[in-house]
């Protein structure tokens, strides 16, 4: 049994490494590609790989969202944007060495920061000692809902989820305000002024 679970862990790590390598390749492809159609397809592939990584990490909810939003709807929206703007990226005016430097330094600092974190899925980690045990033991009993993720999201963290819903709502309102310049009825009336800027 012990060897079996250990080989499962090794297999999981191997899968994660392969997926992360492929994601790195996709990211480099996005950075080097000038054809925006290819960029959009590569970022869709990147999102699908990310969703698979989430499945490997047992976060199926996040994987579902990533697959539907990242790979599905965003890809369609970006293709729509290409349709509006044209399909090739113009060459950069200067070589972006400074941004590369900033990104490298920030990334190195973040990797350095992870060295101080507790080991991955360590049960003694502070985050698993605070309220998590209470949610796991009390949650299903108190709410009658066995899925702890749903209990935390909708009940214990109901305020946060309300805020998130408002964020989604505000984002939608913002996009409508930006993109819908004129209402369809006025277009039909044809006021002739043509206030597009």
């Amino acid at each position, binding site marked *: 049994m012990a060897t079996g679970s250990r080989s499962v862990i090794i297999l999981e790590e191997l899968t994660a490494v392969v997926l992360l390598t492929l994601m790195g390749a996709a990211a480099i492809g996005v950075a080097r590609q000038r054809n925006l159609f290819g960029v959009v397809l590569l970022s869709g592939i990147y999102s699908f790989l990310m969703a698979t990584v989430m499945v490997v990490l047992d976060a199926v909810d996040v994987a*579902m969202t990533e697959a539907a939003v990242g790979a*599905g709807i965003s890809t369609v929206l970006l293709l729509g944007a290409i349709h509006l703007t044209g399909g090739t990226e113009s060459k950069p005016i200067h070589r972006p060495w400074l941004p590369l430097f900033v990104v490298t330094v920030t990334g190195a600092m973040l990797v350095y920061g992870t060295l101080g974190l507790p080991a991955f899925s360590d049960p003694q980690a502070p985050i698993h000692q605070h309220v998590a045990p209470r949610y796991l033991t009390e949650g299903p009993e108190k709410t009658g809902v066995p899925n702890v993720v749903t209990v935390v999201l909708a009940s214990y963290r109901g305020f946060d989820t309300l805020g998130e*819903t408002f964020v989604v709502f505000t984002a939608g309102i913002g996009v409508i305000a930006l993109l819908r310049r004129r209402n369809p009825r006025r277009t039909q009336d044809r006021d002739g002024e043509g206030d597009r800027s």
Partner: protein
Amino acid sequence: MRLDIILRVIAKLLIPFALVFGLYVQFHGDYGPGGGFQAGVIVAAAVIFYALIYGLPAARRVVPDAVVEFLLAFGVLLYSGVGIASILLGGNFLDYFVLGADPVSGQHRGIFWVEAGVLITVAAVMLKIFYVFAARKRDAGEAGQ
């Protein structure tokens, strides 16, 4: 010119299953992975798929802009309404315990309606963003000439 017959037939076969899967993710979210956000994007993706294959005007006939804009606000109001209802029944804002005959059924009911609100807003926002993006060239072209 109808070379896309395969796409049309396959889309017609797939969209009902996508919608049912969205409902499954929504209502089975109490027991398995899923919930309002996931179900909302799946439902929106099904309608967007329909729009891609059959054209934006067809999709706008099925799910009109006015309905989408109404639902976009209605989901948030439903979520907030659950909070207000729990105040009126004597609890705190979003305190679901007072919503049912006993605390457990109250929690269950509160979670159900809250998730429904999330589903409605998320699906409507995703769909609306797609609509305004996809309609932009068309509207701009009409306005330009």
